[in-house]
């Protein structure tokens, strides 16, 4: 199993600013993912965070908008850049270690 923490747990941001979300796993994992959950919706995969190389983005998501870092096997960050109200969502980090474990999420509100 894995215990995943995220910071911040929630934030309210102004349009046009950027927010970086941190994800920490309590053990080394090969695969980490970032998901978005828009209000009342299911989870959508944003990207796979690859250690030592660029993230792999899903259709509809680009690096300029959602830059991701993965400096080691226990840590990743997701930045939501140049935010607009449409970016208001819960952002969830997950790690694959046997099963897929999720962090508690970051609730982002963009005004």
């Amino acid at each position, binding site marked *: 199993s894995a215990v995943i923490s995220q910071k911040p747990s929630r934030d309210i941001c102004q349009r046009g600013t950027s927010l970086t979300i941190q994800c920490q796993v309590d053990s080394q994992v090969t695969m980490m993912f970032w998901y978005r959950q828009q209000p009342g919706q*299911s989870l959508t995969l944003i990207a*796979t965070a690859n250690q030592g190389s660029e993230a792999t983005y899903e259709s509809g998501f680009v690096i300029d908008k959602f830059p991701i870092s993965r400096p080691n096997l226990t840590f990743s960050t997701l930045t939501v850049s140049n935010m607009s109200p449409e970016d208001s969502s819960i952002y969830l980090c997950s790690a694959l270690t046997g099963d897929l474990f999720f962090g508690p999420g970051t609730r982002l509100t963009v005004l």
Partner: protein
Amino acid sequence: SQQGEEDPQALSIQEGENATMNCSYKTSINNLQWYRQNSGRGLVHLILIRSNEREKHSGRLRVTLDTSKKSSSLLITASRAADTASYFCATEPANDYKLSFGAGTTVTVRA
């Protein structure tokens, strides 16, 4: 992309009753997983059923899988107020490791 379709969207039951929700999917899978999410928080992995399994139990949870119909069901027996949450199915495609999540079923257990 979102592969799973869940029904019902919402379910309200009395404490002690059983809750059943269904998930249908479109492509061949390696496994199907069920997750619980409380109040917009992170997801908790409940149970995984592999494509060659037909039924699985975990405590008060019973999951079935019918690969010929591409459908699964989650049964929660003797429900409790603490079971109030959203429940998501997620499929791991046969040719990929990335999970696709369904839209979720919101379950409310009335005391």
